[in-house]
């Protein structure tokens, strides 16, 4: 070893520190941005922030090798300079260096290590590594206490990062920042403990709590009874087992978790409606969701588009004879609340693995994302532990940006919903669609089956303590406990390499089945796959680890990212592993699938788990939940018509739920793969809000996929039944607006609820459970009415924040995503007005339905008249619209949603760059019309369409017998003029003025 007497050595080990910074005179946009954001977030004004990158290299390399690395891959000779084992920072008032805590995924460190290996042609030895950190050089008047706040509240996240703060004097005295290596050092040796369950109820619960197992008493007692069953004991004795091992307990806790077993959706619910009628619902999932799809498929017969529903990681529908579409939407709420960047990044790369691990595997074609946040301008004091909504906004957007962009998957559809109750828990929905060969090596691509004797092969990243008990970690323990396990950071490149490899392996027919390692890690992936054969033998000691010292149970349930599990026939194993090696992907043989009837795990040859498959998968007792629907007492506000409608319209356009999200949309690559035909932004200046996205997955075909969504949590405050109905209609309405084929579409439901189980913590559980029942009733009713089968979904049922006496529950929220087909993308429509003199039509009728509307919210009211959906007339309208679109009659089409007709008119006109004159007296209205009701009602199933005068007759003939009206004309001159019921002018506003009002609020975010 080269002698190193500088501070670069720690003990006997060789530690190198390479610091890289920009040369004098080179602008530092990262520093500029941090400076700007510190001012915005913390109200701390600094003169300047500059940044330096630090690589701490813990490897036996000589000076020449380090110098070559510093001058080569680690720095850019044109704009950067570097220092080795000496400081580089100068001219600052405070220096903050932020690095990762031990065990946290360090993607840049991993890439730096590989680069040095290429450069030196010397693989790193076990235990060697590269660790990265960032130095922020702050100039301005702030003391160490203020710097601590900058570090803790903005630059770093204490869960995953640590920091050093130095003044210039300290920096000089210490000779720079001391090197430190965040290597994981684990104590103790791997061992398997056995648990004595012959204890009191209180002690059983204590075991569950202490182990963070989230098992309730009934479940713990089921386990207690299982191990004393004489038949079970006899079988276990053959493997040398008696009491449950910690490995077994953890597998059971994972498999029986709410996350994996959906216990609330599987529960028996005793429901009482407002008339006192009682009903027992045996599983919401079976009674409403599965039943809807089954009934629809039966009715559709030969027109059934479903290929694989509910049973796999994602749903599969038919695209054409050769290809199938795969779609899945997930939530990643709790991790995003803790670490917005890492949580969201993991959310997107995590949901990527779902379609990829569906059937025999599928190529990913697009992402969608929907976020629910509190206002980024939230100015109230926040309860302890909550991050400011603005920080959550920034972190989540950046996480999804990195996850999607780096993976080469366009993000083509999404939205952001604001409600201050989401301060308690932000919702982060991430969706991914994929394209799968209808037939693969002669068999349906959406089917798979592990066979007895197949090898269990894990592919991709290594296992660490990442995400162990992530779901059940409480806030207190997050600070006190081991930080390495709290949150995970996704690694898009490791995953990308794995996907590149697996697609080749798939096409060569090298495996029989594939699935994702998500929640529950190997315990879930192997546990589910071995249901195909009826058992497995899994050798935990053969799994590759990030660092030594993991307990066997940790190996089994770790949620370390970027891993898939496959069933590889023995005869293909060598070829499979050779291909993986060439493509820089790790693949490990962990055992085999059996038909023993047991989930059998070993550690160095000793049995550590031996669980009856039937008990593992079906042993969880059913939850019983009381539900009672008491409609809230609400009334309509008595409001006068506003004096200045133009001003109200501008204020509506500037509301967070309505305003432009362009700054976010542009941060996502929405065009990679060259398939995006209707992009998120459209119109004359590429800045109008598209209703949905149209994507051409095959470059040499004009067949397209269409994706859209509906989400309206505000209506939940009145009635979740109508909230659900409106979400379904909004999703479909957006879908047909761009030209999606209404008879070739499927839906996905993602429920995010507050805890609906009545308890001391949740005294209003019966009401929340009833809200859940009502939403499910609407889901069944409206999916059936529209003939939209559900193909997949997910639920996240504990979106509450509770510390001490402070409790925030999110509004019950369902994201209804739809995916379907357009036969020829050249018939797709966008929402922008196209030409002067085009006719403006409103399809559908308007009623006094302002309950939960954006207009009422602007007035500080909720109201009671929640919009109700008339699916039968809507379906006829959507089908007719499809015909008009295919015939090329529709110049533009825009859905009416938040803000009603007024907002739709403003958006269509300003995106098109034309004015519009409109007469409200023409609008078909059910009830007593008023200008404000017509303009701001959020009645569902309505669309604003512009049509060239030449197509007038044909268009009106198609819609004969339905509710529609010609309400105005597209005009030159850039003014939106709306005439009221009495012929009076109610709105007169320049479209540039309206666009400015719409763009201003979130432009800088």
């Amino acid at each position, binding site marked *: 070893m080269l002698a190193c007497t500088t501070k670069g050595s720690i003990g006997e080990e060789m530690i190198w520190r390479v610091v890289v910074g920009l040369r004098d005179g*080179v602008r530092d946009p990262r520093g500029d941005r941090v400076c700007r954001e510190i001012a915005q977030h913390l109200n701390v004004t600094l003169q300047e922030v500059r940044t330096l990158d630090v690589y701490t290299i813990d490897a036996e390399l000589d000076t020449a090798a380090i110098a070559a690395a510093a001058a080569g*891959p*680690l720095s850019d000779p044109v704009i950067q300079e570097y220092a080795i084992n000496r400081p580089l920072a100068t001219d600052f008032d405070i220096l903050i260096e932020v690095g990762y805590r031990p065990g946290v995924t360090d993607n840049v460190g991993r*890439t730096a290590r590989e680069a040095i290996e*290429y450069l030196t042609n010397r693989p790193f030895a076990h235990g060697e590594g590269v660790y990265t950190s960032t130095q922020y050089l702050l100039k301005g008047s702030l003391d160490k206490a203020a710097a601590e706040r900058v570090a803790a509240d903005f630059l770093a996240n204490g869960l995953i990062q640590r920091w050093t703060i130095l003044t210039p004097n300290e920096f000089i005295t210490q000779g720079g920042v001391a090197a430190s290596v965040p290597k994981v050092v684990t104590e103790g040796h791997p061992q398997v403990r056995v648990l004595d369950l012959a204890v009191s109820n209180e002690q059983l619960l204590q075991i569950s709590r202490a182990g963070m197992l989230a098992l309730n008493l009934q479940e713990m007692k089921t386990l207690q009874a299982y191990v004393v069953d004489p038949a079970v004991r006899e079988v276990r004795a053959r493997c040398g087992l008696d009491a449950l091992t910690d490995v077994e307990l953890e597998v059971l806790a994972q498999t029986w978790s709410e996350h994996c077993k959906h216990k609330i959706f599987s529960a028996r619910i005793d429901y009482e409606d407002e008339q006192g009628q009682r009903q027992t619902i045996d599983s919401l999932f079976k009674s409403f969701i599965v039943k809807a799809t089954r009934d629809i498929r039966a009715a559709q017969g030969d027109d059934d588009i479903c290929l694989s529903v509910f049973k796999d990681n994602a749903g599969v529908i038919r695209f054409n004879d050769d290809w199938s579409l795969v779609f899945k939407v997930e939530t990643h709420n709790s991790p995003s609340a803790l670490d917005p960047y890492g949580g969201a990044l993991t959310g997107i790369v995590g949901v990527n693995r779902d379609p990829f691990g569906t059937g025999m595997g599928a190529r990913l074609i697009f992402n969608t994302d929907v976020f629910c946040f509190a206002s980024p301008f939230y100015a109230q004091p926040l309860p302890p532990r909550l991050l400011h909504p603005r920080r959550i906004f920034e972190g989540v957007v950046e996480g999804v940006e990195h996850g999607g*962009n780096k993976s080469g998957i366009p993000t083509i559809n999404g939205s952001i919903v604001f409600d201050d109750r989401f301060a308690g828990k932000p919702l982060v929905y991430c969706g991914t669609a994929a394209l799968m060969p209808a037939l693969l090596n002669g068999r349906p691509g959406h089917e798979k089956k592990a066979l007895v004797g197949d090898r269990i092969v894990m592919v991709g990243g290594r296992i660490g303590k990442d995400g162990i008990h992530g779901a059940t970690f409480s806030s207190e323990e997050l600070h006190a406990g081991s930080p390495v396990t709290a949150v995970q950071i996704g690694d*898009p490149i490791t995953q990308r390499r794995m996907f590149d490899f697996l697609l080749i392996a798939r096409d060569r027919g090298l495996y029989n089945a594939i699935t994702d390692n998500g929640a529950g890690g190997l315990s879930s992936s192997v546990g589910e796959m071995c249901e195909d054969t009826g058992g497995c033998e899994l050798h935990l000691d053969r799994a590759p680890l990030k660092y030594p010292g993991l307990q066997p149970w940790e190996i089994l349930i770790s949620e370390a990212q970027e891993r898939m599990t496959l069933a590889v026939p023995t005869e293909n194993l060598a070829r499979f592993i050779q291909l993986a090696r060439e493509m820089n992907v790790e693949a490990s043989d962990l055992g085999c699938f059996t038909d023993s009837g047991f989930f059998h795990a070993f550690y160095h040859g000793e049995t550590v788990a031996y669980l009856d498959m039937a008990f593992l998968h079906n042993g969880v007792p059913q939850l019983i939940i009381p539900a009672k629907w008491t409609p809230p007492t609400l009334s309509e506000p008595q409001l006068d018509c506003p004096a200045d409608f133009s001003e109200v319209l501008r204020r509506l356009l500037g509301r967070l739920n309505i305003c432009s999200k362009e700054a976010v949309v*542009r941060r996502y690559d929405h*065009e990679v793969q060259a398939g995006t035909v209707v992009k998120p932004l*459209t119109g004359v200046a590429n800045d109008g809000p598209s209703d949905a996205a149209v994507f051409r997955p095959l470059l040499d075909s004009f067949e397209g996929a269409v994706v859209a969504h509906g989400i309206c949590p505000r209506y939940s405050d009145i009635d979740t039944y109508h909230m659900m109905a409106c979400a379904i209609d909004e999703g479909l309405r957006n879908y047909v607006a761009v030209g999606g084929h209404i008879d070739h579409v499927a839906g996905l439901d993602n429920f995010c609820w507050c805890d609906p189980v009545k308890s001391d913590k949740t005294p209003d559980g019966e009401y929340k459970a009833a809200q859940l029942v009502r939403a499910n009733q609407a889901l069944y009713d409206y999916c059936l009415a529209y003939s939209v089968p559900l193909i997949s979904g997910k639920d996240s049922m504990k979106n509450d924040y509770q510390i001490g006496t402070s409790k925030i529950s999110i509004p019950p929220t369902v994201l209804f995503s739809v995916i379907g087909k357009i036969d020829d993308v050249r018939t797709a429509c966008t929402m922008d007005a196209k030409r002067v003199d085009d006719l403006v039509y409103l399809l559908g009728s308007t009623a006094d339905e302002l309950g939960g509307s954006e207009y009422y919210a602007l007035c500080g009211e909720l109201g009671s008249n929640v919009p109700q959906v008339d699916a039968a007339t809507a379906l006829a309208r959507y089908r007719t619209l499809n015909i008009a679109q295919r015939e090329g009659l529709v110049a533009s089409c825009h859905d009416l949603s938040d803000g009603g007709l007024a907002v739709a008119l403003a958006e269509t006109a300003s995106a098109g760059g034309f004015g519009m004159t409109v007469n409200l007296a023409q609008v078909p209205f059910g009830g007593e019309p008023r200008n404000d009701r017509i303009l701001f009602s959020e009645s569902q199933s309505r669309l604003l369409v512009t049509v060239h005068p030449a197509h007038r007759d044909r268009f009106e003939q198609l819609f004969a017998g339905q509710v529609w009206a010609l309400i105005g004309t597209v005009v030159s001159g850039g003014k939106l003029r709306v005439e009221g019921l009495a012929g009076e002018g109610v709105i007169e506003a320049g479209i540039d003025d309206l666009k400015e009002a719409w763009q201003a609020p979130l432009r800088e975010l």
Partner: protein
Amino acid sequence: MAKEVRAVVIAGNGTNCEREVAYACRLAGADVADIVHVAELLAGRACLDDYHFLNLAGGFLDGDDLGSAKAGANRLLHAPIVGSNEKLIDQVNRFIAAGKLVMGVCNGFQLMVKMGLLPALDGDHGAQSATLTVNDSGRFEDRWTYLKLDPESPCIYTRGLAGGIYLPVRHGEGKFVVARETTLDAIEARHLIPLKYCTADYAEPTLDYPLNPNGSVHAIAGVCDQSGRLFGLMPHPEAYLHRTHHPRWTRDEALPEAGMGLWLYQNAINFIRAELL
């Protein structure tokens, strides 16, 4: 080699646009457009010698973790080929010496610049003299840009094109900067900047955001070497192959079927057919 135009797109470790680039090559008339994973090249089962047109596609090589394309450049410069004494860079150098065409788009452009392949003044394809760095906005952005052509450029790909072209950029590190002003003077004087960000009428190059999306000096969007055969650009020509790629295709019925990005590939393929077969 048979009388066919053979294009190759290198894939792997974070390339994202290889499929559409290969499709662009085929659409433009290439007889062969192979997507070859870099592992195939490093295993010695594929060889650049078998091709005329090397495409370095957009993406995030190694996540751009060390700066855009830095780790990727390091791999291409140092990775050995199994079963031979060659490194991959030897094949690249041989390819260039044979007068064949290399085009890098976005991350591929960053890769070429950081390997020293561009602008490679005076034929020095080894030393990095320029770089592409973080956008002035500090952010990744997806937006369409107007690009002014230099009719006097030796660039093969823009040969014969007049006025300008309209293409999307999708990057966080697209700001072109040079180490020395003399480099800038030289590439201007020799017309090695075939594309500059410009106003919507294609009249004037601009430094104004967002028309110039990243703050590139001299509004530089693309650069070629003196031979005109090596070319890199930040905007994505493979993202505008058909009228439905245009962000306003629903507004303009007169928009031609073929997209403007295809022109660059057609020029490359036509050149190969005329000069290299």
